[in-house]
């Protein structure tokens, strides 16, 4: 090997990850966002700092003085919202999202048992990886992000037959259905599924995502809308919740995923 000891690597490449490193700490960001109420503050903190062992006693203690919905919305979800901010600022990463979401979900499951008739979520979505496709990690991440954003996820799993997707949509009546694919020849299952839904008179958006899928393909068939990355799914869902149909999502896609 030639002598590399004196090489000035900065002449060859620039480490933008080092240059862009965020010096803020989770504590500094959180101090401006955590609820002032001490009980809610504790709930949000347990989610924010991913303290799985503390979540059950913390929620049980909070239930003595707070209503379940307040615990969920102003404590647990508030903590998760701070996690989302930390993720956007590159202070938290995917493992933190996963763990915080798990803590939040455990807390919600305890609190919502105290709500007569159960808790109403923002809406329901059916998710799956396309027929013939065993790759589902992207779908799983998006599902966590959807649940963390207050939606109910009906997860059909991977390699799901088109007819099974259609049957689930008819049964669950979701806001929209999403599918993922990593192969060019499995993503066509979503196009087939959308056609079958239309034939049944169902006109909900059919979100197509995954490594092989691009916006051109997703928008090449009726009902089809695109999600490039998992974090884009909740903001698109919020628009559908507000009444956007698949055509309007397409029209405003750039601004929706751009955070507007």
């Amino acid at each position, binding site marked *: 090997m030639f002598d590399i000891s004196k090489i000035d690597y900065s002449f060859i490449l620039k480490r*933008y990850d080092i240059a862009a490193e965020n010096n803020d700490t989770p504590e500094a960001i959180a101090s401006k966002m955590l609820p002032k109420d001490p009980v809610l503050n504790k709930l949000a903190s347990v989610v924010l700092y991913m303290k799985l062992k503390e979540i059950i006693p913390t929620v049980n203690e909070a239930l003595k003085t707070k209503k379940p919905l307040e615990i969920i919305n102003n404590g647990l979800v508030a903590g998760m919202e701070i996690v989302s901010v930390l993720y956007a600022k590159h202070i938290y990463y995917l493992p933190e999202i996963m763990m915080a979401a798990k803590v939040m979900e455990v807390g919600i499951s305890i609190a919502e048992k105290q709500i007569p008739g159960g808790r109403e979520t923002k809406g329901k979505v059916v998710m799956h990886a396309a027929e013939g496709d065993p790759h589902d990690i992207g779908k799983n991440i998006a599902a966590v992000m959807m649940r963390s954003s207050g939606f109910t996820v009906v997860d059909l799993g991977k390699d799901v037959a088109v007819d099974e997707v259609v049957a689930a949509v008819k049964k669950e009546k979701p806001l929209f259905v999403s599918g993922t694919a990593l192969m060019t*020849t499995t993503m066509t299952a979503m196009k087939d599924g959308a056609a079958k839904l239309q034939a049944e008179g169902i006109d909900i958006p059919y979100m197509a995502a995954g490594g092989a899928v691009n916006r051109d393909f997703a928008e090449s068939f009726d009902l089809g809308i695109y999600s490039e990355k998992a974090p884009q799914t909740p903001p698109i869902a919020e628009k559908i919740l507000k009444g956007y149909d698949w055509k309007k999502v397409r029209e405003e896609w750039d601004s929706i995923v751009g955070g507007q």
Partner: protein
Amino acid sequence: MTTKYTKMAYDNADDMVFGHAKKPISYGLGIKVGAGRVIPEINYAPRPGTEKSVERITKEYVDYISKDAITRAVTLGFPDLQLETEWVSQMGTVKGMGASIVAGQKAITEKMHDEYGINLAVRHTIPDQREAEQGLRLGMDSKFSYPEKFIECCETACENGTDVLCVESVGGKEFADYAVLNGDITAFLFGVGYLGSIDMEKIWTEMVSICKKNKTIAGGDTNCSGANVSMFMAGGLLDNDVQRTFSAVTRAISAARTMVAMECGATGPDKDCGYEGPIIKSITGKPAAQEGKNCQCAHADIQGNLMAQCADVWSNESVEYHPEFGGSSVQCWLGPLGYECSLMNTAIVTGQAKILRDLYMTSDRTRGPEGYILAYDNAWKIGKKIAENGNDYYLRAKAAGLAAANIIIEGNSKKELPLTRKQLDVVKKIVKDLEALPDDTDKFYEYCEKKYKDEVPNFKPKSYGF
């Protein structure tokens, strides 16, 4: 029984260079790999919708993709070309589809070889659709019969004329997915390093047997389903899903697993997307297929030059077939791929190979921790740790992970490899986690079985013979 590697094929890292392998191999229509010339390998995906019939997809693969690629290779004066077909799922499930495509590609390579004298071969990489939930071994999957289909695909590919048989096997993926999402190196070690190795021993013993029966080259495997997921999610310099130090350590662990194919009798070239290739080549001496700068059609990695350092086959990973200004996509991506091989081969024939190798390696050495541990000098050090612990799947994978983590920390402390605070924190925690694990394989299994009982519910011990 397999013969495990406990010694290094290369006594010195400096002996490793592109185009040369300790154990070269010949196959196909004049292709010689690791014998002094780097071979370009073009990989492709059919257009959506072409899978609707056997006739249509055969036409896509044979009359369009294969013919386009070979014609372009001849047009540009490339002496060698390997085609790689990574089977789409329908090739393993629709009757006659796999056989039709394999036979069609065999026929067109023979025709073009006869016509132009170009050296050609076809590699078929069969799909591993086995699902952890259903079970990985024969008789376990009553819903899809994917383990049985796996074997059928191997037989179909070999009986219809593939030159090389490969797979991207998925043993341990249930833990790999969990590990990557949760930043849990122990789960990755258990899933990929230990269970994945056990699964590979099972399937590769069978694959090598099928290859021998059909006089087919048993190529190799890759941890695409684990370490590549980790690498892709770690992404580029501004991505923020998985830490690149975590990804780098998963890569080292995956090397201990992927080389099981070689221990079962695979001869190489292994799979291009196995970025663990330099480590495996240092141990086995068998030819490595790699990808990097010329696979940007499929994904961006941050060691695009470096991966050419020890490559014997140089690939584009995969490109969807479609028209571009300069021809079809396979033609346009074969151009730079073949010219890169031409540059490497010029370096070889002029005695400059080690200079070019070091230029490739140096240009990406500090772009990220994964490239850093794959730089051939560091890859060799990791290989040595694997070989020293070669008789035990768990211990050698753990040794690989620890070696990689310590190489990264040392590189950072001597100010060669910059890391963010988070990247450094993660790799230090990895060392702590790995060092805390038991030294006994049975105790490690018991520990993981208990620890992940609820976290990885789709784990079926029976899939791995437990």
